[in-house]
């Protein structure tokens, strides 16, 4: 027994001296390009290695419950029912915001304007033709063809679908009752394709198609996307700026908030945060104190210095209000009741 203890002690001491702390995380694929950039910079700067597996939000949450990772990452916040599955309280720390844009394939790809009720009825399968009078009424300058609308949606469960359906549930009662919001849905109409590339592929191929993809994906691939009317009645072009602006609202302290259809007058209405999830007391997450300290340092860095890597990769950085809330949450993280960030 004694020998084992000595060996354990010796190895921990050795690893402590080498500062070979490795943090592990798993979850969302949407922020993966940004996280891998941030983690590689962080590794060069502070020598802390972070091993992040982009296995999807659901998988990240399951692994955090099982305590097989130090942090999870998710595009949708964990609802109250879901929180009960964790063995101890967790916190959500917002990292960046993203947006979902509506892309289409029309002759000449004009800049379409869309209103919430029209978007809902298209995806409900009620508006079936592009030259429908309601679409024409919003776009008087565009000559819309007599062409069938083919709805394209994600076939795989995804945070993108969650944000989009969350938006539709807010703007349309019929959508809320018939379909609802979730990462996978029982779609009333249309074709499913896997991932952003799958949806984009079908939209590009099928004349008359309409679908939704992440803003970053549309920007990187030069896809046309619609200008959407927000809650204040303004038509907003999706961009990093208008997404950041969508978060310029009164935010709850736990930051479990949806950014769809917000009050912000110049915010793009189909936006959402992506979060990193950790146990509130990191001892509960099975971390040792050294790892816990490093994890909190990393979270602080990601929400501050690390934010500068978001815009070049087309993610919207945290708004000042959102960052304030994130700071408070990071400061509330403890280890055996002791606060870790001073």
């Amino acid at each position, binding site marked *: 027994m004694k020998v084992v203890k000595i060996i354990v002690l010796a190895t921990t001491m050795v690893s402590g001296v080498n500062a070979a702390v490795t943090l592990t995380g798993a979850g969302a694929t949407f922020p993966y390009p940004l996280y891998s950039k941030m983690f590689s910079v962080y590794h060069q700067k502070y020598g802390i290695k972070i091993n992040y597996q982009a296995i999807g939000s659901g998988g990240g949450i399951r692994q955090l419950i099982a305590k097989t990772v130090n942090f999870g990452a998710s595009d949708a916040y964990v609802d109250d029912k879901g929180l009960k599955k964790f063995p101890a309280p967790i916190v959500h720390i917002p990292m960046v915001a993203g947006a979902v844009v509506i892309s289409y394939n029309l002759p000449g790809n004009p800049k379409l304007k869309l209103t919430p009720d029209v978007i809902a009825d298209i995806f409900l399968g009620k508006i079936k033709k592009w030259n429908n009078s309601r679409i024409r009424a919003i776009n008087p300058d565009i000559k819309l063809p007599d062409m069938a609308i083919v709805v394209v949606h994600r*076939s*795989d469960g995804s945070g993108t679908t969650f944000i989009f359906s969350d938006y539709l549930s807010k703007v349309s009662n019929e959508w809320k009752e018939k379909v609802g919001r979730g*990462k*996978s849905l*029982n*779609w009333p109409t249309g074709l*499913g394709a*896997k991932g952003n590339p*799958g949806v984009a592929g079908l939209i590009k191929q099928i004349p008359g198609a309409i679908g939704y993809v992440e803003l970053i994906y549309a920007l990187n691939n030069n896809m046309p996307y619609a200008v959407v009317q927000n809650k204040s009645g303004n038509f907003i072009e999706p961009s990093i700026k208008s997404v950041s602006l969508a978060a310029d609202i009164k935010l709850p302290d736990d930051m479990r908030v949806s950014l769809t259809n917000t009050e912000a007058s110049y915010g793009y209405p189909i936006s959402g945060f992506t979060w990193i999830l950790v146990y509130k007391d990191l001892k509960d997450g099975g971390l040792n104190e050294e790892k816990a300290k490093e994890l909190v340092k990393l979270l602080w860095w990601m929400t501050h210095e690390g934010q500068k890597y978001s815009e070049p990769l087309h993610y919207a950085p945290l708004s000042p209000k959102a960052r304030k809330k994130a700071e408070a949450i990071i400061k509330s993280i403890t280890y055996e009741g002791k606060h870790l960030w001073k």
Partner: protein
Amino acid sequence: MKSDSIFKAMLYTGGVIVALLVVFSFISLFRASWLSIRQFGLKFILSPVWNPVSEKFGALPFITGTLATSILALFISLPFSISIALLVGVYLPDGFLKNSLSYATDLLAGIPSIIYGFWGLFSLVPLMRKMEIKIGILPYGVGILTASIVLAIMIIPYTSSISREVISMVPEDIKEAGFALGATTREVIFKIILPYARSGIFAGILLAFGRAFGETMAVTMVIGNSNFMPKNIFSPANTMASVIANEFTEATKDIHLSSLIQIGLWLFIFTFLINLLGNIVVNKFRVESRK
């Protein structure tokens, strides 16, 4: 003597481990889907509604989609795979053409399914769309027929190479006896070779069917992934394997996960039944041909 018994023990261990793997995967599939089995019972395979939001799960559209694509694929592939098998096994003399033809068919089996998927999506789908516009239906391009064509190409090597082997195993003397009686090559094929080789050909067909049944990636890319009951062979649909692949990673609710695993359980059961049926039929033919 001793090394012999060690060798024997090794063989036993290997065999038993594989058999246990099958048993254990069945048990763990069953256990993980228990939640969904208890909640939905038999309605799971009879209900056409799959709604992750309201947590109602019925797998009928996926079962239909899987059966429709695999059976259709089998019918499309059969004329080609049997032709290749007969061409290589009976008509062509040994040499370059024979070798390259059988080599090329076998190579089809080695292409990763994602490649078939992309080929389907970028080459076959536009063609199908053109055809659909011509016959005046909604030009999705993707759907059951498209998926079946892709699947058919993928399974040709399975049927053809096994058929080729059994056809070449037909004893020369009975073939020559046929020719000696004045039969044409076509007559020898239909009256002697095919009846003699049919249990083997059937085994090849079943193997191909099993392959089509479980194929995931290539089908997902061209079937349209819509969770309704398909109306006709041009309808977009979904298969059991592809709905698992699509929804598993982000299934956070227990009942959703359990229902996806139950689909896996049914895939397991169906595959088992196909193999069982295959064995019965193969045995029956074997008995018949011995008579």
